[in-house]
C-alpha cells in the first residue's frame, strides 16, 4: 500500500464497501474486504487475511453496538450460539493448514447458494 492519491482512493473505496456490507448484512465483511485487498490494493493473500481482521473488528464492534442498543440481540439465542462459535472457531483455527479446505469450500459455497436462493425467493 502506497501514498498516491489513487491508492488512497482505492483504500477508501475498499473500506466503504466493506463497512456498508458488514453493517447492513451483519457480517460478510471478510468476504468482501479480502478480495478487494488482493485485487485493488495488491496485497499478498496472507497479509490480506490478517489485515482484513484489523478492518473488520472495529466495524463489527460499532455495528454490534448499534444492533445491541436497538434491542435486536436476543440473549436466549445469542449466548448459546456465541459459546458454539467460540468453540468451533478454536477448532477451525487449529484445523487450518492441517486439512485441505478445497472440498470444504465447495460444499460450503453450495450451502450458501441454496440458503441465498431460499432467502431471495421464499
Amino acid at each position: 500500500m502506497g501514498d498516491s492519491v489513487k491508492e488512497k482512493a482505492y483504500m477508501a473505496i475498499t473500506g466503504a464497501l466493506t463497512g456498508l456490507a458488514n453493517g447492513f448484512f451483519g457480517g460478510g465483511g471478510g468476504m468482501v474486504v479480502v478480495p478487494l485487498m488482493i485485487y485493488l490494493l495488491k496485497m499478498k493473500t496472507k497479509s490480506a487475511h490478517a489485515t482484513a481482521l484489523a478492518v473488520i473488528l472495529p466495524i463489527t464492534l460499532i455495528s454490534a453496538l448499534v444492533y445491541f442498543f436497538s434491542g435486536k440481540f436476543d440473549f436466549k439465542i445469542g449466548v448459546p450460539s456465541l459459546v458454539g462459535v467460540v468453540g468451533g472457531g478454536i477448532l477451525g483455527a487449529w484445523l487450518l493448514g492441517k486439512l485441505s479446505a478445497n472440498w470444504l469450500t465447495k460444499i460450503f459455497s453450495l450451502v450458501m447458494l441454496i440458503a441465498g436462493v431460499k432467502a431471495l425467493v421464499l
Partner: protein
Amino acid sequence: MIVKMVLLAVCGFSAGVLGGMGMGGGALLIPALTIFFGVDQIGAQAVNLVAFIPMAVVSLIIHLKNKRVKTQGLLWVILPALFCSLSGSFFALSISGTLLKRLFGAFLVILALFQLFGNKIEEFFQNKKVNNHSQKI
C-alpha cells in the same frame, strides 16, 4: 429449552469452525438461525455480529504479534469503513425484515458464486498479467 440451547450451540460451532478456517462463518450462521430457529433476519444479524467479536480479538492479537498486519496507511480503509458500517447498520434497522432477508439472499448468492468460481477469476487476472508482461518485453 435445553435442547434448543444445545442445538444453537451446535449450529454456532459449525459456523465457528468455518469462521476459524477463514471462510466466513456468518454466511452460515445467519441463514441457519433464520431457517432452523425461526429468528428474524435482523436478530440473526445481531447474533452474528456479537458472536464474531471474541474470536476476532484473539486472532487479531496473534496476527499483530506475528507482524502479518499491514498497518501502514490502514486508517484510509478503516475510517470510511467505520462510517459506512454505521450507516449500513442504521439502514438495515430502518427497512422491513422481508426486504432485508431478500437482499441478504442476493448477497449470499453473489458471494457463493465468487467462492465457486473465484479460482477461474484469479486465473483470468493472472493470465492478463502475464500477457501484459510479455507485451512489455
